[in-house]
């Protein structure tokens, strides 16, 4: 237990030092939010007041509020916070986990990929991780289609979402980043989420993998309010069709985009997963002082 506490304290200190040296401002945003995100595959915990009236949801990520800070003029911001996801439990999932999220106004997804490479190498050094030697930048980059082609022997039409993700989960992801981390780029436009589109029509979204584990998910951010509203409405319709809880659209977030959010790059990194990988632990629970099952 003490070992876990020391590991985490050391890592948090290294993260703060890394961003402060690069002139990032540490920010805080609320845990209870008016909309936890409409993504069809995310499930949020609802929060009610003592009389039983709904007051909101626990944030599945601090994205909307951090982007409002970008619109308000913040340029480089980072946050270390707890994020909450219902119905996720496994060796790489916990209902509450520590998220590191950062944004660079005027930045691109390339800029934040570089941040990620340097940050992870820095933390590995500070923790004297056995992996410190294999994390130097730049990490290899491949597109989603290249990853499918290499590991599944075929490219799968993202319109067949079930097959796309099942093949990804079974054949592709476990093979990614075996010796060194790899960055997977050019996701299908239908999975753009809050990312802008590349010139070739794919989403400006990336994920880094190390030993088959997804470490982070980043975007060249979508700043077009009208397009963002269309995507929200599409996701909302999917949720209704699938019989899932339907969350409100965060109108203040859309207002902030309308007022003008600078072109930005952003990334969200699972701190527990990173610590698990750097210490060669077998689960994120083993680098957490209080995994849900031991509460």
């Amino acid at each position, binding site marked *: 237990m003490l070992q876990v506490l020391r590991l985490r304290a050391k890592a948090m200190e290294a993260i703060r030092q890394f961003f402060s040296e690069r002139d990032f401002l540490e920010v805080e945003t609320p845990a209870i939010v008016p909309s936890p995100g409409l993504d069809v*595959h*995310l499930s949020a915990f609802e929060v009610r007041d003592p009389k039983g009236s709904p007051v909101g949801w626990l944030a599945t990520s601090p994205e909307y509020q951090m982007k409002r800070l970008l619109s308000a003029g913040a340029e480089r911001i980072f946050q270390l916070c707890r994020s909450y996801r219902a*119905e996720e439990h496994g060796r*790489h999932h916990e209902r509450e986990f520590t998220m590191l999220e950062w944004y660079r106004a005027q930045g691109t997804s390339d800029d934040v990929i570089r941040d990620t490479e340097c940050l992870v190498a820095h933390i590995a050094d500070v923790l004297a991780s056995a992996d410190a030697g294999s994390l130097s930048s730049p990490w290899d980059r491949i597109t989603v289609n290249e990853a499918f082609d290499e590991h599944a022997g075929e490219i799968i039409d993202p319109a067949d979402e*079930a097959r*796309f*993700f*099942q093949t990804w*989960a079974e054949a592709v992801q476990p093979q990614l980043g075996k010796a060194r981390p790899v960055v997977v780029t050019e996701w299908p436009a239908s999975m753009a989420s809050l990312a802008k589109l590349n010139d070739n029509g794919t989403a400006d979204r990336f994920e880094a993998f190390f030993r088959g584990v*997804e470490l982070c998910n980043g975007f060249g951010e979508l700043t077009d309010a009208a397009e963002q509203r269309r995507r929200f409405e599409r996701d909302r319709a999917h949720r209704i069709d699938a019989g899932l809880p339907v969350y409100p659209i965060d109108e203040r977030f859309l207002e902030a985009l309308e007022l003008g959010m600078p072109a930005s790059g952003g990334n969200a990194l699972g701190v527990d997963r990173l610590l698990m990988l750097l210490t060669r632990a077998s689960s994120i629970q083993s680098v957490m002082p209080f995994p849900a099952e031991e509460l």
Partner: protein
Amino acid sequence: MADTSDIKKGFKMLIDGVPFAVVDHQFVKPGKGQAFIRTRIKNMMTGAVIDRTFKSGEKVEKADTEERTMQYLYPEGDTRVFMDTQSYEQLSLTNEQLGENALYLLDGTEVDIMLFEGRPIGVTPPTFVELVVTETEPGFKGDTSSNTTKPATLETGLQVNVPLFVNAGDKLKIDTRTGSYVERVKG
């Protein structure tokens, strides 16, 4: 009907009419995509282990299996007769169904029998059994080293390698998981 949230180690489910036991399972959720449960499951009829992926939330059928503690009574032709220690109900298993486990059975030995839809499909003997040596070369009294071994036949027909000091008539503790000698016990 159960669903994937019920899946844990040892959970028994029915796939195409065959009972499978979960050996290992992992929740996976690629990026912003659909979540899956990847499982490693063991065919309870054949022992074969396979990988299978379920969509998170997918319905799975719980297998109607039950493990009962039963006492071995006696052989009857090519079968062995067991009795439920609680209900006194009797059932027979063929030597073929029992396989090597038949070699751990003495009158009164209690075993766990796995039943699938009421039919026996597997037997777990006690982890340790004590069996008497019926045949082995005479031992050397002074040799207590266990590095050198010799073959011995036990009362059930089981063959094990034993240290040189073991004699016919000695009672031995046997590990049924490995089928190997553990120690000599007082008879």
